[in-house]
């Protein structure tokens, strides 16, 4: 093949900024959500260096002190500074949310890809198993798993991740079915590309956006789930704080020390709200239907 042009049709082509990014930045709720999440992630990363007190050492002389200049958020039932515990707890809570979703995605997406792409009995098997897992209530599944693995934050993450996995299997499968029908996948097969390559280069990148959106939304659910497991004693383990476990303890002191529940409760509310807004925003930005 020689390098002479048969036809010339060069055209000036302005470099387009990613449409998704532009749309995301134009989406007010997404930006607000992103800002909230960023704020809390920052708090989780650098917060512990700002904490002025040891988050786990009790102080029997300052039990359940209301917020003051000394203790910005007050102290808890063992006299620990709530502000410091909140900062440390941010790590546990955000990690619980993010890591369990990562687990769910890492486990769920391959199954969904395989089921959706190959179809047939592989699909039937995976789909039925997914249905079955979905049929068992999320929390019960998580409780049983967490109880089996033993109560700890990492086990809670695994339990939440495993329980959330079927959602991603199903979502991925559905997306694969859509993407599989696209011309460019047929085109890839027409070239003779191997299935694995098509799955990785063609299907996966194109099914990922809705999965990421669902991911951010599930992070929110997972944070709540960690709080719920903490409520049942299966989440973050004492004396280390997570917002969920703090809230769980605080519920015994709702009257005597309302600040103990107000701060972690509000923090959970805000970050879950943040992740939800972010997820919604991403959905709008990545949704091809949205103009």
């Amino acid at each position, binding site marked *: *093949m020689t390098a002479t042009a048969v036809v*010339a049709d060069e055209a000036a082509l302005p470099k387009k900024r990613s449409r998704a990014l532009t749309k995301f930045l134009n989406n007010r709720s997404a930006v607000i959500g992103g800002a909230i999440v960023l704020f809390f992630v920052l708090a989780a990363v650098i917060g512990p260096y700002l904490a002025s007190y040891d988050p786990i050492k009790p102080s029997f002389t300052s039990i359940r002190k209301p917020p003051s200049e000394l203790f910005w958020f007050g102290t808890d039932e063992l006299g620990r500074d709530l502000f410091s515990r909140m900062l440390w707890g941010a790590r546990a809570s955000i990690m619980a949310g993010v890591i369990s979703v990562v687990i769910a995605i890492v486990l769920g997406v391959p199954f969904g890809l395989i089921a959706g792409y190959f179809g047939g009995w592989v699909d039937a098997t995976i789909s039925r198993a997914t249905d079955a897992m979905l049929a068992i209530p999320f929390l019960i599944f998580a409780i049983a798993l967490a109880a089996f693995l033993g109560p700890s934050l990492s086990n809670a993450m695994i339990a939440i991740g495993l329980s959330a996995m079927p959602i991603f299997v199903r979502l991925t499968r559905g997306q694969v079915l859509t993407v599989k029908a696209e*011309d*460019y996948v*047929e*085109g890839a097969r*027409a070239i003779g590309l191997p299935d694995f390559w098509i799955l990785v280069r063609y299907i996966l990148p194109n099914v990922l956006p809705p999965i990421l959106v669902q991911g951010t939304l599930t992070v929110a659910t997972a944070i709540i789930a960690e709080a719920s497991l903490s409520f049942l004693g299966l989440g973050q383990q004492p004396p280390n704080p997570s917002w969920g476990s703090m809230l769980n303890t605080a519920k015994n002191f709702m009257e005597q020390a309302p600040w103990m529940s107000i701060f972690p409760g509000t923090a959970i509310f805000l970050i879950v709200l943040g992740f939800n807004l972010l997820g919604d925003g991403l959905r709008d930005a990545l949704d091809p239907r949205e103009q």
Partner: protein
Amino acid sequence: MSVMPSNNDIILEGVDLKKHFGGGGIFSSPTVVRAVDGVSLGVRRGETFAIVGESGCGKSTLGRLLLRLIEPTGGDVRYEGQSILKLSKSELRRLRRELQIIFQDPFASLNPRMNVGDIIAEPIWLHGLASGEGKRERVADLMRIVGLLPNHADRYPHEFSGGQRQRIGIARALAGDPKLIIGDEPVSALDVSIQAQIINLLEDLKDRFGLTLVIVAHDLAVIRHMSDRVAVMYLGEIVELSETDALFDDPLHPYTQALLAAIPVPSPSNRQPKALLQGDVPSPAAPPSGCRFHTRCPHARAVCKEQHPALEQAPDGRQVACHFWREIQGAGAGSISAPPPSPALAKRLALYRTWRERQDKPVATSP
């Protein structure tokens, strides 16, 4: 147009091809759609072969069957005389290099997450044609060949216009040095001005690389312009197969006649009363008995309802599936008279072409 194939050198052949959708087991839809139902045809080396028909006639399915992108329910596909249905995975991959496809929708046919360079390079990489610098060179060549700027290789499909994307698709189809390309409505999603560019491009490429083209389309003007032979499909069957000019000048099958009659003529001074085909295309899930066209055919008789007409040979090598084609021939309906352009238009078009060529010259000489 390329040299007319003077031989019967068949490069790709479909033998009694059938594709039925649905009706599998209890888990799938109970209705069977006979998308392609017993189609036989042979594509000659170096020709442009067109498959034409209205939506739902099975022409796209036929195109995919010929490439074994979908598995036929029955029949055989032979490439260079060899059945491609029994090929092993690696043999099939070799075949994929030689048989390529261009899709209708330039917005859907490119992976939005890959840049153009990677898209075009993929077949080169897959078939081990070049690597590293060589591969980049080849991609740049291909881009130039189809009229794209090689320095746009790092852009993503969404940054290109429809016509440019179709060029990308063509470059990719060319990347493996194919022998035959099937174009599935390659220009129907494009604007008229872009459509003309792509038609010209395809013709140039065909000449240059000695390709065989199979064009699946519904636009009869495009087909007349591009193709050597035409197969007209109706409800999963070929009703007429003929040299292009013969078909347009003297359509044999009543469906072909009606199809031609329905085309609006771009000449306001030649407005004429039209013989209109009545009714809708029946559902391919429940095709009419006998001749499938009998429900809409102005010449239908009792026998058409009962007997399915076979595709028979007409004297000049044409094929037609109609019980009464001999009687209908020359019944007045059908052949279209395209009036010559008005003198003013002809003059301006000539002027336009001249200036247009001058416009291209500086570019054509650049490397």
